[in-house]
């Protein structure tokens, strides 16, 4: 099993060409956080400005994983874009809160809510 | 290929732990580059080693050694006194 390949898929957003959905599944941790940063930088290089991160199937995140998300968030904002996160489970949200990242990340309850802010 | 590595685990003998011990060996095998089929075999062999031991050693500590060599996993189970309870080998691809 290759954790990096299993973790992340990229999809288009209907009607918003400069946005992508990043669907996460499994665990985001020190073994694959760098891959997330690489994917985001690659998307930025393609001209993508908005990312909607689907956490519905994300079971676990550690501080390194959150670091990658904060990095991605910072890079999207620097480029004049945005990053939104949706479908965060209770346990993951608690970790995000404890670290204080909830004040820095744009978190929505559902993917529909997050995508609606793009249109 | 990484150099040979050994994981040593001392764990309380408790049958409810068995699914998680098996999963640990499988996960570790994958982390060492074993293919999913070999990792699954490693899980089966771990189950075989432990099931018998937990029945005859209902309390106390069991020690599992997982030695990863190039394309091979050697599993060895010992009781608290250091007596060998069993060994298994799994070829990794």
């Amino acid at each position, binding site marked *: 099993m290759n*954790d990096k390949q299993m973790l992340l898929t990229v999809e288009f957003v209907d009607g918003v060409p400069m946005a992508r959905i990043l669907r996460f599944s499994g*665990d985001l*941790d*020190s*073994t694959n956080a760098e891959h997330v940063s690489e994917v985001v930088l690659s998307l930025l290089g393609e001209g993508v400005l908005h990312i909607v991160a689907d956490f519905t199937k994300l079971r*676990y995140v*550690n*501080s*390194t994983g*959150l*670091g*990658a998300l*904060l*990095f991605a968030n*910072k890079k999207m904002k620097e480029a004049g874009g945005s990053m939104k996160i949706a479908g965060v489970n*209770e*346990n993951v949200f*608690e*970790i995000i809160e*404890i*670290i*204080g990242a909830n*004040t*820095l990340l744009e978190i929505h309850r559902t993917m529909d809510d997050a995508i609606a802010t793009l249109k | 290929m*990484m150099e040979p*590595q*050994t*994981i*040593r*685990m*001392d*764990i*309380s003998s*408790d*049958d*409810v*732990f068995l*699914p*998680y*011990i098996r*999963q*640990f060996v499988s*996960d*570790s095998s994958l*982390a*060492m580059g074993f293919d999913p089929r070999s990792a699954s075999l490693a899980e089966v062999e771990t189950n075989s080693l432990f099931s018998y031991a937990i*029945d005859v050693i*209902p*309390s106390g*500590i069991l020690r599992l050694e997982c030695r990863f060599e190039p394309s091979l996993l050697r599993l060895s189970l010992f009781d608290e006194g250091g007596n060998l309870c069993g060994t298994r080998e799994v070829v990794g691809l």
Partner: protein
Amino acid sequence: MTLPVSTVLLEPFAEEPTVSVLRLYGDIGLEAITRISALVDDLVEKKRFHLLVDLSQVNFLSSPVVGALMGCRERLMRRSGSIALLAPKPELAEKLNLMGVNLVFPYYSNKNAFLRHFRWEYQSESRSLTLEVPAYAGYVPAIRRLIAGLLLSKGYTPREAFQLESIVDELSNNAIEHGLPIDKKFSISFSFDKSSIHLAVANGCKTLSSEAQERIREKFRNPCIIPGSMRGRGIALVKKIASDMTFRVDAQRVQVSITKMREES
């Protein structure tokens, strides 16, 4: 010895003096109810509140007897006692399950399984895990999932297991990344019972100067989360989740220990 068709015997449990064993033999019907109730009354009077009902030699158990056992259960549990069923034959177990008995009484296939559960539940027996692992980040997910699984298997909630998973992950990665494990290994000692968890992660390292040791101690004493920064969050997270965190930094070894008390039993 050939026993009468329906026999009810009460014996002490050799391996566990605080438990009594109610041995039933053959077909257990209405006629056994009075005897069973009397035996349990006697136990309660003698302040013996834990009962194991041995069904291994039972062919048939009537519904009124099941009802009587439910009544016994109530009496024992009111006094913080317990009642469990031992080794019902498959056909009997199937019938009992149809009656919903398995939803009320725990079953154990053998006395060792019962003892493990009993001592955990009523005698605060603990469980432990020690790992000596190569300092390779790829193993950390396996380690944290193992520890979370052990906790779940003994009745900890998913949230509690998740929090420990976070602690294990952060301390292990810290040992691997920052600990300069000299022998390329690190160790985890983990023990827990019904009410508390203890975890220690340690690694050897190249000889640290006094200044280096103090820098590490300061990092543990005052971990800081810098908003927007990608670094330095792991130890702060551990400190916030754990009930208590201590550390020991020597010239050639670093160990971080935590205790996590359960919020409610």
